[in-house]
């Protein structure tokens, strides 16, 4: 008999439940008063960066991987985005790759190695292969695991000790999070993308505003986003302090998933959809916190400081630290402006750039590349730029983009077209900013040194990054043609 993955749990509780509570309840293995609950993990994603010590711990304790078939490994953080057929010269990176391959082989874990046609950033390939599905619990030793919540899954980042715990037990010991609903009313204006929506949220709640919460994004503007856009939003939940972000599954979700390699087909698919349709929060479900925002008030966002909460609209100016009420914020802003080498009052549009990076688990999916390519088609990267990089999130994205001729558009416009990986988002390979260089980046973190020691990062959407590459400084993308339709 066909059986969908999870049955709707029946409980004697009559209270309406949130999406988060439904998934939590369906995965409870054990609970006891005063203790964290044991929850079952459906999909465990691992990469070369944070897993070697977990496998070493398992071996030292003589333990096995309990459910190797539920674990998927990929090489993404340290891989070269240039010619991958060349030997890996970085001995430390080579050590990571070899360790991951060896551990996967020894414990029977599924592996997409750096030569796989399906290799890519872990948070890009999970969804695109349909490994990620609604209602699942998904963890990975990577804080941007929140990305997968876009499918109505409970997905969050864990540390290496917890990776080891999941490998050994397929469970995690967790305290139940509080819930926050962030509702975006109305429609977002043209030129405003999911990236701008999440940056606006972080600007509003601050980088610790979501600490302790699982955030559910809702409202017309969120419903109106493609899966790509929803992933961008959920991806940066952690930048607002929330370990997980979620969007309730709907027809957009099911249409995206249908016919993906790991998604059931035919009658099984219909049964899965039936289950997924039971997941959205019940009418009247209670949240511990709510925030209502108006999408029509949004504008393209640009970060000016050294965390994602230091963000403003493209038409604004670099803020005066004294404009912040809290002395702690004043001090942080002052320090950030020194690091960023920016003067208070400088119009955002006057900030000129050295490098542009379009990529990362936040913004490197096909739609991101399509939208950026429309902006740069027939134009050329500004002379003051040292480099403009496009790094597709996965090799599948790369192939699909090439089939549409996007690579040619980018290359003709003066961009470098690279192989898939985390690249300049974290700079563990050769793709880095040099000291003092300034980037417009579609990634997720503008921390000091994130893209290279002494590098200065401004976070923006793909269309904003594309336009900035053409002009050599930030511009208001709403004034350009071809900015419509970008997610």
């Amino acid at each position, binding site marked *: 008999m066909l059986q969908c993955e999870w049955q709707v749990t029946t409980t004697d509780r009559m209270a309406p439940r949130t999406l988060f509570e439904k998934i939590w309840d369906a995965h409870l293995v054990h609970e006891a008063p005063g*203790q964290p609950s*044991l929850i*079952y993990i459906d*999909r465990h994603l691992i990469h070369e*960066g*944070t897993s070697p*010590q977990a496998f*070493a711990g398992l071996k030292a304790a003589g*333990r096995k991987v*309990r459910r*190797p*078939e*539920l674990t*998927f490994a990929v090489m993404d953080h340290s891989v070269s985005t240039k010619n991958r057929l060349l030997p890996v010269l970085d001995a430390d*990176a080579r*050590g990571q790759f070899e360790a991951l391959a060896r551990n*996967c*082989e020894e414990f*029977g874990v*599924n*592996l997409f190695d750096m030569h*796989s*046609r*399906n290799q890519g950033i872990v948070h890009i390939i999970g969804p695109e292969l349909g490994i990620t599905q609604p209602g699942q619990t998904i963890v990975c*030793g*990577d*804080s941007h695991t929140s990305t997968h919540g876009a499918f109505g899954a409970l997905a969050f980042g864990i*540390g*290496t*000790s*917890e990776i080891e*715990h999941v490998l*050994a*037990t397929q*469970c995690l*010991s967790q*305290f139940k999070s509080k819930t926050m609903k962030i509702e975006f009313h109305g429609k977002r204006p043209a030129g405003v993308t999911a990236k701008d929506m999440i940056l606006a949220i972080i600007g509003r709640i601050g*980088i*610790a505003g979501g*600490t302790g919460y699982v955030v559910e994004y809702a409202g017309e503007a969120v419903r109106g986003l493609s899966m790509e856009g929803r992933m961008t939003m959920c991806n940066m939940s*952690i*930048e607002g*302090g929330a*370990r997980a972000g979620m969007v309730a599954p709907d027809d957009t979700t099911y249409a995206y998933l249908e*016919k993906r*390699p*790991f998604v*059931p*087909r035919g009658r099984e698919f219909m049964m899965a959809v039936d289950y997924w349709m039971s997941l959205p929060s019940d009418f009247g479900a209670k949240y511990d916190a709510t925030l209502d925002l108006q999408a029509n008030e949004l504008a393209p966002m640009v970060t000016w400081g050294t*965390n994602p909460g230091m963000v403003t609209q493209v038409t604004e100016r670099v803020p005066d630290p004294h404009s912040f009420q809290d002395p702690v914020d004043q001090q*942080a802003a002052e*320090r950030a402006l020194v690091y960023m080498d920016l003067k208070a009052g400088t119009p955002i549009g006057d900030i000129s750039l050295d490098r542009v990076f379009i990529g990362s688990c936040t913004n490197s999916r096909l739609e991101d590349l399509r939208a950026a390519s429309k902006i740069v088609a027939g134009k050329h990267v500004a002379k003051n730029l040292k480099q403009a990089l496009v790094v597709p999130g996965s090799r599948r994205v790369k192939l699909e983009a090439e089939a549409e001729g996007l690579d040619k558009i980018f290359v003709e416009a003066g961009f470098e077209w690279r192989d898939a990986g985390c690249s300049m988002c974290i*700079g*563990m390979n050769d793709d880095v900013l040099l000291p003092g260089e300034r980037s417009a980046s579609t990634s997720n*973190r503008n*921390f*000091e*040194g*994130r893209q290279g*020691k002494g590098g200065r990062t401004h976070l923006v959407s793909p269309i904003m990054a594309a336009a900035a590459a053409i002009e050599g400084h930030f511009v208001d993308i709403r004034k350009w043609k071809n900015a419509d339709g970008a997610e």
Partner: protein
Amino acid sequence: MQPFTKHSGLVAPLDRVNVDTDQMVPKQFLKFLTREGYGRVLFYDWRYLHGEKPNPEFVLNHFRYKGASVLLARANFGCGSSREHAPWAILDYGFRAILAPSYADIFYNNCFKNGILPVTLSIEQIEDLFRRTEANPGYRLTVDLENDAVTDERGLKYAFTVDPFRRECLLKGLDDIGLTLVHEPHITAFEEGHSNVPVMYEAVDVKFHHE
């Protein structure tokens, strides 16, 4: 994991909010395969100038804080990346306890897995401790998990609370995995009621071990 019961030590003040884990252990040090040896690179970009020359302006390089084992910090300590290299580095450097008004979730959790006690005090109490640390060279604090209090030698006493389960695990240095495996029958029962094996309906290029 080494247990944490009570620790006395020199206090070092790190007067910055939102210290992220990228600062604790920058990316170039995430390529090692062990949990040990990260103390040398803790706060690398702040701590060292070109050629790994100690930056005299960075607080941990001040002579008076040499040998510190209690880290006094500001709000939202440990935000950003989930890298457990951050608490590994903190521990390897010699810190056993952190005192701050708030922490980021993943980092907070990771501390408990490594025998580090992250104590949460109010903003006012932390402010007071910064004042005391700066005013009194050689200022030491005792962080006592058995009695849930931070004390100094002059009679100061700040009580704190830690979740009772986490407290117990830290006091006894319990192995998380061992604790979970006590529930093995529950896990097996759960697995018997749920079929969640991934099926590859269309072949993809993975070293797939299970069909």
